[in-house]
């Protein structure tokens, strides 16, 4: 049911049709039925009324018939002739019917009575005397001359009507019944013959039954099937007393039982009830009937006609009506169908269009519906606008979608790239990355892990992380993991930890580990980042080493500088003292000792400066092969006799820019160290030189700690066959004051390193315990030529007035020594004990001052700043710089700024005098620029 309802509701057309079906059609049918039944009822009533009239008329006719006969009889009885005839018959009858008198009377009155009989259409006429004798009859049937009180026919209807007439003094009639004398049905009318107030006899007439039946069977107005049924009531049945149309022999032959189903009309009629209705007659046909009572005969009469015929005309109308209604309904329904279709067609079209639109059809048009002049048209218009807007929107949407798709694509690409990027980062990361679940099982890892731990990926996935942890750390790991799982306390959080890892080979190596928590799909994982810091540690150690050496160098340089200042004072004063004490041999010796010791101290300082790379360099182009050949003799005497020196020198060496003395010192130190390594045993010390092209990879693989440039280098190797060194010793040999010897200051190797680095070179040691050691030194080939400034030896400087010198030095001893030396040579001296004072003094005495001796390293304004200030005041004033550092280091900041000259501390008073005088003489500097 619900489905049907639903399918109906899907379309207005269906709904309208259903509405028509369930409302209009039943309504029409109900109306038709009502009209029908009303019409039927009216027809029925009309038919009944007409039948009733017929029945009444028929009853009237019968009653009239009887009444007429009663009248006839009464009239006849009152005629004097009758009375006379009666008296005549009465008297003669007593003489016998065969008597002459009776015959005479009969012949007299017979024609008279016969005439009446014929005229009124009777069957017979009787005269009955008061005693009951039938004294006259026309037919002379068996009843004639019998006594109705005592004779054979005393119980006949004739007897009854006779008695009643006489007793009641009234005419009356019998009903029809079989009368034996006539051998057929008979009925009688009787009336008393009253003569002078006394009843003398009775006149009776016998009906002509056929004539009576003719009256009854007059069926005019009853059509083809109409019938009049007449019957008399008996205790258990109704006897039909007249012929029937459909059964001419029915009279007194046919009876209808009271209990018969079709007995009601005739029974009721014969019992005095009137009625009407549709009945089933004795033939079983349906008939419309009216029944009533005929008092004069005590009969019931049913006037009926078959309904088929009675309603025949109605049936015809009925058929037409049904046809008409049917046709009207069909036509109406069809028109309604057409109308509904017409109304719903645009709606359906609209629906179809909507479907098309919904289905995404492009070329949808509503133009055909726009002209419709009703709601549908309005709807179509609205729909059309909506459609246009929708199409615009659709286009816009498509654009947007396309753009979105494009950007999506780009985004996807970007995301893909990003993912690839991130994947690549993970894949190519040299740091190992792995994830681990809460049970310590490895979930994922990157190739670096495999690389670091030397495993294949499948050997680690799903395995416990402890596989990668050395035995001694496993407990610690488990504790940390359990502790975290218990109370969330983290031992590691975004912090890296340096611990040790375990390679597949069992090798334990340092790693940098950081562990982070991460949540993926509600699972907590640990992300471990692992870095193999084996190489890093090595490098770090080297850097630390170098830094340590550098800081030692700075320390040593600083000490040496201060020492030089002190030695400058000592040497200067000793020299000045010697001059003043020329005549005192003892003093002279003492002063000489001071000088010697001071010079040895200066040499020590020089070594310290060399180590720090700040020793005074006298750079010149040297051919190492040549230098070594010159040194061989010196070297051979410096070593044990059992040790021979083997030279393997290249003859085609390019020169190097180097300080010859320092290079000699390097070689000497190396050879002596080699000889000490060989100790008392016999051995060979091999010295090898060669020219090599060094590229960066070579430098990095061998001298990674040094900043070397690629290029041509001279390689010097000093190898021995000595005891060799262990690794630990190798790590420390370049540190100052490290020594394996009980004697010695432990500055030899550090000085070598300082010298080599001072020459932008590199040194490497290869040593194997018990087999020997090889030192390998690379020195860059020279690209330019150097002329050597040879330090001149002592030359006596005569005193003469020479002008004023401004001495700026924070070291009072130096200041005084320099002042004294310059005063010796005839200069006036202005002292300034720091830079600020120096600038002030120069401003104050700039006209007098012919030169400035400026210390490099000072508090407040340093030498450089003072130089700039002085030069601002007077551009062409000669400034001589003095410093404990070597000239190159000191003067490189003044190049091009008009520095007049440089004098390295410690300097002798003479050297100072000569320098100042030379500069004032020439006006130009003589140091290398």
């Amino acid at each position: 049911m619900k489905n049907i309802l639903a399918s109906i509701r899907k379309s207005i057309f269906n709904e309208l049709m259903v509405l028509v079906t369930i409302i209009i059609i039943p309504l029409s049918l109900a109306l038709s039925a009502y009209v029908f039944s009303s019409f039927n009822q009216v027809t029925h009533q009309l038919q009944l009324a007409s039948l009733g009239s017929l029945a009444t008329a028929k009853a009237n006719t019968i009653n009239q018939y009887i009444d007429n006969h009663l009248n006839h009889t009464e009239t006849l009885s009152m005629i004097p002739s009758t009375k006379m005839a009666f008296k005549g018959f009465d008297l003669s009858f007593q003489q016998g019917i065969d008597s002459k008198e009776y015959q005479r009377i009969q012949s007299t009155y017979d024609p008279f009575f016969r005439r009446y009989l014929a005229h009124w259409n009777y069957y017979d006429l009787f005269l009955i005397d008061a005693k009951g004798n039938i004294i006259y009859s026309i037919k002379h049937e068996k009843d004639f001359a019998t006594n109705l009180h005592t004779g054979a026919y005393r119980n006949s209807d004739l007897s009854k009507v006779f008695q009643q007439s006489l007793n009641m003094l009234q005419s009356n009639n019998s009903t029809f019944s079989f009368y034996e004398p006539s051998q057929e049905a008979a009925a009688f009318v009787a009336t008393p013959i009253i003569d002078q107030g006394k009843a003398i006899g009775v006149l009776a007439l016998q009906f002509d039954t056929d004539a009576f039946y003719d009256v009854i069977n007059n069926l005019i107005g009853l059509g083809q099937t109409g019938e009049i049924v007449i019957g008399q009531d008996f205790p258990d049945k109704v006897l039909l007393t007249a012929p029937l149309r459909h059964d001419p022999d029915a009279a007194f032959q046919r009876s209808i039982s009271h209990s018969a189903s079709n007995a009601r009309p005739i029974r009721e009629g014969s019992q005095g009830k009137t009625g009407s209705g549709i009945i089933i007659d004795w033939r079983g046909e349906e008939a419309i009937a009216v029944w009533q009572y005929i008092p004069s005969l005590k009969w019931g009469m049913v006037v009926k006609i078959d309904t088929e015929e009675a309603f025949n005309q109605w049936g015809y109308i009925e058929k037409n009506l049904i046809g008409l209604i049917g046709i009207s309904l069909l036509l109406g329904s069809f028109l309604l169908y057409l109308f509904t279709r017409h109304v719903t067609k645009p709606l359906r079209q609209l629906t179809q269009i909507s479907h098309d639109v919904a289905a995404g059809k492009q070329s949808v048009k509503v133009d055909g519906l726009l002209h419709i002049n009703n709601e549908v048209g309005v709807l179509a218009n609205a729909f059309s606008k909506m459609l246009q807007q929708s199409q615009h929107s659709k286009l816009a949407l498509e654009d947007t979608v396309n753009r979105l798709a494009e950007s999506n694509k780009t985004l996807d690409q970007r995301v893909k790239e990003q993912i690839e990027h991130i994947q690549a980062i993970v894949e190519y990361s040299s740091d190992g990355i792995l994830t681990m679940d809460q049970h310590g099982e490895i979930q994922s890892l990157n190739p670096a892990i495999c690389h670091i731990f030397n495993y294949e990926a499948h050997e680690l996935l799903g395995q416990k992380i402890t596989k990668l942890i050395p035995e001694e750390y496993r407990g610690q790991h488990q504790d940390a993991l359990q502790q975290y799982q218990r109370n969330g306390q983290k031992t590691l959080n975004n912090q890296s930890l340096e611990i040790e890892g375990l390679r597949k080979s069992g090798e334990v190596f340092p790693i940098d580990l950081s562990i982070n928590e991460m949540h993926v799909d509600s699972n907590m994982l640990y992300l471990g980042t692992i870095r193999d810091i084996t190489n890093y540690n090595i490098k770090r150690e080297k850097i630390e080493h170098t830094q340590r050496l550098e800081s030692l160098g700075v320390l040593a340089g600083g000490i040496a500088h201060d020492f030089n200042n002190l030695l400058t004072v000592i040497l200067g004063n000793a020299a000045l003292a010697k001059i003043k004490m020329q005549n005192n041999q003892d003093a002279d010796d003492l002063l000489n000792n001071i000088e010697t010791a001071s010079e040895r101290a200066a040499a020590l300082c020089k070594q310290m400066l060399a180590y720090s790379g700040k020793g005074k360099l006298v750079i010149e182009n040297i051919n190492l092969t040549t230098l070594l050949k010159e040194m061989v003799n010196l070297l051979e005497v410096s070593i044990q006799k059992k040790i021979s020196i083997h030279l393997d020198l290249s003859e085609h060496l390019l020169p190097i820019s180097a300080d010859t003395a320092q290079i000699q010192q390097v070689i000497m130190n190396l050879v002596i160290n080699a000889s000490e390594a060989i100790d008392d045993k016999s051995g060979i010390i091999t010295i090898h030189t060669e020219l090599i092209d060094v590229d960066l990879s070579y430098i990095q693989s061998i001298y990674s700690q040094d900043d070397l440039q690629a290029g041509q280098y001279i390689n010097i190797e000093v190898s021995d066959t000595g005891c060799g060194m262990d690794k630990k010793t190798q790590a420390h040999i370049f540190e100052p004051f490290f020594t394996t010897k009980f004697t010695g200051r432990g500055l030899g190797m550090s000085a070598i390193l300082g010298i080599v680095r001072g020459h932008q070179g590199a040194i490497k040691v290869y040593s194997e315990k018990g087999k020997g050691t090889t030192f390998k030194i690379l020195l860059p080939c020279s690209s330019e030529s150097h002329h050597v400034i040879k330090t001149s030896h002592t030359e006596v400087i005569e005193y003469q007035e020479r002008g004023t010198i401004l001495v700026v030095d924070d070291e009072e001893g130096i200041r005084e020594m320099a002042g004294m030396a310059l005063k010796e040579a005839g200069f006036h001296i202005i002292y300034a004990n720091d830079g600020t004072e120096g600038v002030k003094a120069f401003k104050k005495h700039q006209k007098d001052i012919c030169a400035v001796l400026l210390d490099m390293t000072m508090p407040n304004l340093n030498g450089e700043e003072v130089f700039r200030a002085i030069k601002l005041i007077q551009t062409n004033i000669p400034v001589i710089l003095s410093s404990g550092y070597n000239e190159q280091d000191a003067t490189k900041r003044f190049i091009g700024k008009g520095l007049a000259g440089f004098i390295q501390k410690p300097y002798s008073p003479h050297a100072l005098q000569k320098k100042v005088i030379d500069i004032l003489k020439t006006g130009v500097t003589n140091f290398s620029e």
Partner: protein
Amino acid sequence: MKKSIFIITSICITILSITALSLFFYQKELPPIKVGILHSMTGSMAISEIPVMQATLLAIEKINAHGGLLGRQVEAIVVDGKSDEITFEREAKRLIIEEKVSVIFGCWTSASRKTVLPIFEKYNHLLFYPVQYEGLEQSPNIIYMGAAPNQQIIPAVNWAIQRFGPRIYLMGSDYVFPHVANWLIKKQANALHASVVGEQYIPFNHYDVKKIIQEIKRLQPDFIMNTINGDANIAFFHALREEGLSAKDAPVISFSLGEAELAHMHDDQDITGHYAAWNYFQSIDSQENRDFIRAYQKKFGAQPLSDPMEAAWASVHLWAKAVKSAQTDNTESIRQSIVHQSILAPEGVLSIDKKTQHAWKKVRIGIIRANRQFETIWSSKNPIRPAPYPLIISKPEADMFLSQLYENWDQHWTQPVIKKKNNHFPMQKSQL
């Protein structure tokens, strides 16, 4: 959902509209059919007429209980004739003219009937008259539901002569019915070779019958024909017994003494064994009668039922049939229709003779038993054709007789009471 509600609502509205329309056409209130009931509720006739009025109402009630006639209720307008002809005349007029009744059921005495007859004929109206009477009358505006002389008096006289002998004593109230009846009896007696030995009339409300009884004692008739009406019967029968005349010594055949009157007798002994001629006795054993008695007694208590009551009850039903048959309450139409009607009444088949407008009636003679009920001892085999003018007289003869009575009684149908009631009333013999 909304659509189905709409559809259902439409259907409901349609059905309601149809119902409303059909109710509108169908239930249009039809006015009731007015009928008049004209009987004496007071006066000397009240004792007889009130039960008749009740029977009439009972029949109307039954018809109304079955839906009325032609879809209309029957409204009975009961008026009191006060046992007075003038009142009857006035009330009849009022019913016809003012109340515009369709029909009137009423009257008991021939005096009242004959007084109102001109009214009915003047207005061409219709009266159902429920009581046996003396005949010699045939008006198209009256349906005579009681017995004509040939349906009561003549058969009874014939029966009595054969049963008791030819010497007849006539006794009656001093008004038109007894006079005419006795006139007829005398004619019949003559025709049947019998003789009337004495004839006495007493006014209504006259109870001194001693002298009459003494005359009867002296004359010793074979039987007495009693046409006394009203409560004078009580005095008559009582006096009869007091004088020592038993029912065997002087059997009385009454024509106006029914079960209702018997109930008012002071002593059972006064009446037991006497006779009456009627068309109906309460004792008739038929389904129709049992239904009638039950319905009446249910409504009015255990009262006796009598012939006029039955005739009155049947009148209403016959009239109803006529209305149904004519499909109208129009008086003229019913007058034409009524003559074709018949019913199965408590007394048997009851039909109207077209020629005379009298009913076909079966004649019964009953003997009064101690229970004040009749036992039928003779009856005609079939209903008797009504003959208001018996064959032994002629119509001109009858008319002359009646007009003479009327003129003698100062143009009344009852002998006027001239003297005071203690005086002897004149014993008037018929002039014919």
